[in-house]
């Protein structure tokens, strides 16, 4: 009952004229980000932080959550029509989506992508509504050791899952923590790694680092590739967009299965929308009666990953809102946005800012409806945007990033931070170091350090405090197991070799 009165209150907030307008702007902008290849949701949200600085926190975050969802919807359009993923969570959609378009079934593929996204997105928000509040209640009893363990587990899972090499993932994560140390130490007031720059006393600005690492480096990487696209022309009447009865029969079960799987996967740190879409596709292929048809242009191959990436995006909001721990690159940027707007993410958020939390959740229901409208009747409009060449977009991305960073603090120095991290991000991409752990570590760094030092202060320097308390013991164990997994695999391989030789 409590949840229902809360969600009603949330709709009261979300349905105000201003919030509706910004939710619409967010979803339109998000769809645009999703449709255009070369910029993903992380960049889209990061650029928005400074722009929405003047708005109140609730409106700003509603806009950004709309961008996150919108990107998940929009990405499929590009995958289907030009066989280039609009963002990384739509990579798998290319496989069957583009084949369908080649067979002249672009319209139902686009329609099914939007409908699957809608069903999965809405299911995810419903699950979020009922799961996040009790989780936050449990988390209220957490002390510093539990929080440290939670953040530590989040960091290790993300770093060990991101990228190809775990060593490189961990190095990225630690680099992010080092960057988080820059500035005045919150506990002792000591200056750290400021190199005499006054502007670094507050730390390296989160927005500057994120925009540099994601937007600038992405532009630099794209300069190497010719971004010319082969566009499949298709006519879309509203009627042709609706999948037929057989399409529905093939797709409904995969949509529901993928929604539930991806939602819970999205709850876990490290498994973002991209991994969920790959897993959803693989799972449906395994369960299918005709797995050999996957990749030849069947509708389940579009419905499954599109449902999965939307449900995962919704799922990643659970730890963000209930625990204050982001589970993916985009939710890390969202957490950064919460901090910039002066909100204190964590289990208390449901009590200290109920209008914000419930307004945001209610806005997600609304955003899904808006996105369905934006992506069904208006899909032709988005498709025509794909004719704008990347050559024209590139300078726009660069200038908007630079000015966006500047406007956060009206400080030229922030642009230099963006500049430096743009180059670092480019080198990292080229050398196959994942960038998401850096941002996650940068956001979680202060929490990790504070809780670690508090815990050790409570225990007089005794590390066993993390193992004598049950919740933190479990979380730390999960983290350590995920760190040791490759090591164990190495030992197993070695034993196998020994057995084979003998």
């Amino acid at each position, binding site marked *: 009952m409590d949840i229902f009165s809360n969600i009603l209150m949330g709709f009261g907030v979300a349905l105000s004229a201003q919030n509706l307008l910004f939710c619409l702007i967010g979803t339109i902008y998000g769809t645009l980000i999703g449709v255009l290849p070369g910029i993903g949701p992380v960049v889209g949200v990061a650029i928005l932080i400074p*722009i929405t600085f*003047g708005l109140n926190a609730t409106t700003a975050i509603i806009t950004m959550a709309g961008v996150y969802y919108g990107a998940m919807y929009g990405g499929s359009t590009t995958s289907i029509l030009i066989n280039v993923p609009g963002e990384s969570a739509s990579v798998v959609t290319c496989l069957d989506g583009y084949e369908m378009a080649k067979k002249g079934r672009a319209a139902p593929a686009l329609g099914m992508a939007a409908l699957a996204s809608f069903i999965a997105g809405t299911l995810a928000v419903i699950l979020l509504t009922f799961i996040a509040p009790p989780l936050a209640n449990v988390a209220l009893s957490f002390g510093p050791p539990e929080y440290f363990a939670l953040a530590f587990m989040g960091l290790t899972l993300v770093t060990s899952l991101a990228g190809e090499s775990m*060593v*490189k993932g*961990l*190095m990225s994560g*630690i*680099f992010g*923590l*080092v960057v988080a*140390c820059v500035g005045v*130490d919150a*506990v*002792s007031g*000591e200056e*750290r*790694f400021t190199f005499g720059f006054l502007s670094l006393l507050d730390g390296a600005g989160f927005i500057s680092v994120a925009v540099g690492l994601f937007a*600038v480096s992405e*532009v*630099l990487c794209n*300069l*190497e590739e010719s971004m010319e696209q082969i566009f499949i022309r298709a006519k879309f009447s509203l009627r042709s967009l609706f999948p037929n009865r057989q399409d529905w029969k093939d797709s409904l079960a995969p949509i529901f299965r993928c929604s539930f799987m991806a939602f819970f996967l999205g709850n876990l740190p490290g498994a973002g929308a991209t991994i969920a879409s790959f897993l959803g596709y693989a799972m449906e292929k395994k369960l299918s009666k005709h797995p050999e048809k996957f990749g030849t242009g069947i509708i389940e191959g579009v419905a499954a990953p599109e449902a999965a990436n939307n449900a995962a995006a919704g799922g990643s909001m659970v730890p963000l809102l209930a625990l204050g721990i982001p589970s993916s690159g985009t939710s890390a940027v969202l957490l950064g946005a919460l901090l910039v707007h002066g909100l204190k993410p964590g289990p208390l958020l449901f009590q200290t800012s109920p209008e914000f939390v419930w307004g945001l959740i209610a806005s997600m229901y609304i955003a899904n409806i808006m996105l369905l409208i934006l992506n069904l009747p208006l899909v032709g409009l988005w498709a025509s945007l794909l004719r704008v060449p990347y*050559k*024209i977009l*590139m*300078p*726009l991305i*660069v*200038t*908007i990033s*630079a*000015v966006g960073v*500047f*406007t956060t603090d*009206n400080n*030229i120095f922030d*642009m*230099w931070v963006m*500049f430096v991290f*743009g*180059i670092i991000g*480019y080198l990292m991409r*080229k*050398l*196959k170091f994942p960038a998401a752990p850096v941002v996650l570590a940068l956001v979680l760094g202060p929490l990790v*350090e504070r809780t*670690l*030092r*508090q815990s*050790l*202060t409570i225990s*007089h*320097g005794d590390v066993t405090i993390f193992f004598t308390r049950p919740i933190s013991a479990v979380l730390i164990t999960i983290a350590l197991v995920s760190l040791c997994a490759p090591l164990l695999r190495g030992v197993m391989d070695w034993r196998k070799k020994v057995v084979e030789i003998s």
Partner: protein
Amino acid sequence: MRRADQITGVIVLIFSLAVIEGGRRMPPSGTFGPGAGFLPFWLGAAMAILSIILLVNATREPVQASDRSPFPRGRAVLAILETIGGLAAFILLLETLGFLVSIALLTAFLLRCVERVRWLTTATVAVGNAIGMFVVFRMLLGVSLPKNIFGF
């Protein structure tokens, strides 16, 4: 990637030693519990160990004739350097030239020199972008933007 990983390993090792040294110079413990240098020191140590693992792993990999550098050559290098240089010049000159002129110049430079777009398109997009951004940031969002001595 073998050679690239080796070089990265060495660079990161040097970086982590610098972090360790930085951490050592800060007070290791405060009045109660660990101090400001505690976390940086251990982060540096962990990073040093990881960079040695990376170095060893890369060195143990068999040498392949096809071990190419992950970095581009030729035209793409030029494009990347031009973009970086253009952005640096933009940041340096922003407060002298003012917002409108700098944005238009950077956009035009990236379109014309890096992407080789036609002059007419370059000019249209550059002017449009500068005006569009001015409208959004200055007029709609009310951000104060850098001006040149002529006041724009």
